[in-house]
């Protein structure tokens, strides 16, 4: 995948980063989705869970690293072959946690279609939903670029 940059609108995105950081902190010690473990010995199950958590933390580190000093001054985030997939996965982890923590009241169908009446949401839920959409947009952008690189190769 060729490296690419995206310029984000700082006044829109910066408030959402508070949510991303808060949830990422919580995800350091818990899985975004409770993994269904195979029936086997306890040691293996513990290894399975801990390895998932290590990978999740690495992904979240890549996502948080996007929003560095340069981003805060220029609004630009940069993607390349070293961080793209980690960030796509981290976005999924945070979206799952957003759903669980803030968006339980919204129907699955409404969330999938993005058909949510923002005006009817309280402030915290509205911010969480905006964050949910923002992370989905990041995922779409990255996946599109990765798919293009496969077609072009």
């Amino acid at each position, binding site marked *: *995948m060729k490296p690419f940059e995206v310029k984000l609108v700082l006044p829109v995105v910066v408030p959402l980063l508070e949510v991303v950081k808060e949830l990422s902190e919580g995800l350091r010690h818990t899985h975004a989705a409770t993994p*269904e473990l195979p029936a086997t010995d306890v040691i293996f199950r513990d290894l399975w869970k801990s390895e*998932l958590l290590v*990978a999740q933390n690495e992904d979240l580190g890549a996502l948080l690293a996007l929003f560095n000093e340069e981003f805060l001054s220029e609004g630009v985030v940069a993607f390349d072959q*070293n961080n793209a997939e980690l960030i796509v*996965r981290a976005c999924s982890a945070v979206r*799952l946690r957003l759903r669980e923590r803030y968006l339980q009241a919204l129907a699955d169908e409404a969330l999938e279609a993005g058909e949510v009446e923002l005006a009817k949401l309280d402030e915290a839920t509205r911010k969480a939903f905006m964050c949910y959409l923002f992370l989905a947009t990041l995922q779409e952008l990255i996946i599109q670029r990765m798919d293009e690189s496969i077609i072009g190769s």
Partner: protein
Amino acid sequence: MAETKTHITPGQRTAPKLQLEGVWRVVVLNDPVNLMSYVVHVFKRVFGFDESTARKHMLEVHEQGRSVVWSGLREKAEAYTFTLQQWHLTAVLEPDEAV
């Protein structure tokens, strides 16, 4: 495209002999959060599916709630299940009772 970081997956360990016997299925269950394009990407990335095969499985998950994405020996099925969970898909391991 970036290579997925390789961890020592639990699926690579030596399991008791009994657990490795028979055919096992890797099943992906529907969830309301992950994007369709994301699920297609994961299937292509993890299994090497082409676009149409990946989309077929994604639509099965979306419309029927589940899709069997791989079947074979237990050890490899565990490794695939682990990798799909690393991508935050709801993946489970089932014995293939038809075999």
